[in-house]
């Protein structure tokens, strides 16, 4: 319990620091730490599959992509005029979410509705086919169509980025071929 409280406090402190920070490079790094702490939180809640994903995607790859974006733009956040509406929207959304948590079952409550709908059947079915990790059984077998859809979404996302970023670069390649090589020789 104390380690969960510590993680929560650190998450809140980090979130406030990120919101306050003007240096986007430092903010990206803090986001990465935020993800890593979240992964620790998921591990404590026995959601190891989610923790894996959070640590690798949130703390690793997305941080690299954000840094790559910063290299293209600027490291400094521009100071705009203070706007009230976005602040009110954020506060309203936060308040709604906190209000929503009042209806959630207590963490680990065996009587919660989600544990009595299809979950018992999933657990029993997974046991019958001798696959201990129920998450895998649900993802790949019971919800095989959903996961097929998700894989297609990943593929489509990659395709979209390839069309947006890759196509333009390749078209320009033949003309600029001489120039970038020359500069890379200089820098090395």
């Amino acid at each position, binding site marked *: 319990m104390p380690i969960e409280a510590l993680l929560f406090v650190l998450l809140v402190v980090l979130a406030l620091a990120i919101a306050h920070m003007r240096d986007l490079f430092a903010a990206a790094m803090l986001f990465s730490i935020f993800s890593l702490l979240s992964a620790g939180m998921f591990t404590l809640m026995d959601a*190891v599959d989610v923790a894996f994903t959070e640590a690798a995607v949130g703390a690793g790859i997305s941080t690299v992509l954000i840094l790559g974006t910063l290299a293209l733009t600027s490291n400094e956040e521009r100071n705009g005029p203070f706007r009230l509406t976005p602040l009110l929207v954020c506060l309203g959304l936060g308040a709604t979410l906190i209000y929503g948590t009042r209806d959630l079952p207590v963490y680990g409550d065996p009587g919660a509705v989600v544990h009595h709908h299809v979950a018992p059947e999933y657990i029993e079915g997974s046991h019958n*086919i001798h696959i201990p990790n129920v998450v895998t059984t649900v993802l790949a*077998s019971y919800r095989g169509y959903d996961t097929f859809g998700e*894989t297609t979404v990943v*593929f489509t996302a*990659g395709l979209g*980025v390839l069309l947006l970023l890759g196509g333009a670069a390749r078209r320009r390649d033949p003309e600029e071929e001489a120039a*970038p090589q020359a500069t890379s020789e200089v820098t090395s």
Partner: protein
Amino acid sequence: MKQHMRMQDKIILRLGAKFLVPFILLFAFYVQFHGDFGPGGGFQAGVIAAAAFVLYGLIFGLDTAQKVVPKSWLEKGMAIGVLVYGGTGVATMLLGGNFLEYDVLHHHNGQHYGIIAVEAGVGIAVTCTMTLLYYLFAERGRR
């Protein structure tokens, strides 16, 4: 570009990356193939493998990384991953079952085989997509 060049000269970063990359890849394979029995699966394994390639690219430069894993492989791999997944479904249909009904693959271990096949598809697709995203972003930064 200049940054990549300077990264290579830092011996601790270079040796650290060289030491870590094989272990990260090994861990990715473990997560991939042990997904039935422990935490993890295709998506997690794919992201971990991609993290290894991204680390390699960050330390040794984009050009070296693209020699190890060329972009054309990744473009094909993305599609192959989805095709492996969909192909498993088509295979079960050809064997007389429904789409993705693994039980027809084997009289006893059908579910195991089916899950391993689709997880492999997910793993390939995710590894290739994530690595390709990094390549495309990093390439753009150099222009």
